């Protein structure tokens, strides 16, 4: 589904991504790991159009989306979360989820300003769908749809962010360090959440950036290790964690 070949990103003199080669197929969860600064988030940013691409190609479902603007990438069915949780904390949980649905919502003046009864019905429908999606992760959370986002604990905020990415049934889901800042209990809950995502949307491809190896080990089908913007190694978690090159990259000389 996703084919990345020779992707290069340069910032002035610094090469953040150096000819990256990567594939992701429908239904698989690809774990993206590597030491700090190896270019993982830069890859997401390049893919979703937040960072200019200096070379290479990105094909999604056969279409060339190299360097496409974020809006076009979203329209193709690619959704993401952010390393630094980017939610609208002054708004309600429902509002945050509906942002994810933006491309499917009507924005004309007639529908929004005058056909109010129809709008009310549509809102009720979306709210029901949102509750259902949240309940996959936590029934308690589903009941808090109308509350301000800032009232939620960290784990629930992450869940809202993931749901926001899921709400339009994307074909490719990009998760950027969802376990950052979480306690071990919360991380365990997160792992269950990720399993639930796979179960609920079996056709979706997921690329997961993580530092917590336990999470990768439990949920990923395949791993890709990045170092200095290049692919270092690829395979199952077990294989990759035994690779001497990988150990050297993470731990220094053996």
């Amino acid at each position, binding site marked *: 589904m996703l084919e990345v070949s020779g992707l290069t990103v340069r910032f002035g003199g610094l090469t953040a991504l150096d000819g990256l080669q990567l594939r992701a197929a429908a239904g698989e969860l690809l774990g993206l790991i590597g030491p700090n600064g190896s270019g993982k*988030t830069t890859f997401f*940013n390049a893919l979703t159009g*937040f*960072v200019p691409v200096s070379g290479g190609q990105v094909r999604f479902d056969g279409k060339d989306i190299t360097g496409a603007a974020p809006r076009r990438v979203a329209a193709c069915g690619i959704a993401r979360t*952010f390393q*630094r949780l980017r939610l609208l904390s002054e708004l309600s949980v429902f509002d945050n989820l509906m942002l994810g649905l933006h491309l499917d919502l009507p924005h004309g003046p007639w529908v929004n300003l005058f056909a109010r009864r129809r709008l009310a019905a549509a809102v009720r429908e979306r709210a029901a769908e949102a509750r259902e999606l949240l309940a996959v992760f936590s029934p308690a959370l589903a009941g808090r749809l109308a509350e301000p986002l800032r009232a939620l604990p960290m784990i629930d905020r992450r869940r809202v962010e993931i749901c926001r990415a899921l709400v339009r049934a994307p074909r490719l889901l990009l998760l950027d360090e969802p376990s950052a800042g979480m306690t071990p209990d919360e991380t365990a809950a997160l792992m269950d959440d990720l399993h639930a995502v796979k179960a609920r949307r079996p056709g979706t491809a997921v690329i997961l950036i993580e530092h917590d190896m336990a999470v990768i080990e439990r949920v990923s089908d395949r791993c890709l290790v990045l170092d200095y913007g290049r692919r270092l190694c690829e395979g199952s978690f077990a294989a990759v964690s035994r690779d001497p090159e990988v150990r050297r990259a993470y731990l220094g000389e053996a």
Partner: protein
Amino acid sequence: MLGVIYALVATGFTLFFGVMDVIKFSHGDVVMLGAFTALATYAAASGAGITHPALLLAFMLAAALGVMALLGALMARVLVLPLRGAPAINVLLITLMAGTAIRESVRLFYPQGSNPKPFPRLLPEGAFEAGGFTLRYDSLILLGLGLAAIAATGLLLERTRLGLAIRAVAQDPETAAVMGIPFRATVLATFALGSALAALAGVVNGLYYSEVNFGVGLLLGAIGFSSAVVGGLGSVWGAVLGAMVFAALQTAGALVVPGGSAYRDVFAFGAVIALMTWRPAGLLAERSAERV
């Protein structure tokens, strides 16, 4: 010459922005207040019997720069620092209102504030003729004074510890704090410095035109801001460059546009808008990318 005045104002803007990501819209009015402070000092000093022009000038400068520096630091302490967490628009608004408050206070409370007031002629009269060119002595002195101040600021930023602190805080406040640089003190110092420069600009302006007017702050502020932006906010040399560019645009406007000097400001501001459309980050920009 105009360029130098603008440059003094623009440098202040750029310093404030660099240090706190803040546009202090009250800056232009601080310029005006500096001029008025000097005027008041003049009145007081000559009333006390001091007549020597150099001495008077020294007193005026000391008073203007000192009082404005204090005011700048006070504004930072009371208006800007407390609003660090708030949306950027709030700071913009609060400084804009502070500028208005200053402007109106002068208009209302300074005796006869709403009329333009003559500024004392303290510089040597006469000019220096050379091959068709006439250079007034006072222009030369003012030019020298302005350039010296800008150069001194540049040196301060590059060579002294305070300058280092200012640049460090402008680049990365968190790291600077970790390295032991006192954030608040540096911010206060920066605002004091910028305001002192503004006061100097006010005095220079007054001496050059032999007159001060309470409303001059708005236009000068807008020009100073435009210059700083054109040159790239955060860069002192950019501010100087931008100021020169603006002064040049004004002169060009007076010449190029029919109906001349009335449209000169329209032309200059229009050109600034166009420039900013072409180069949004400024001519000598230090680009800061947002982390996604």
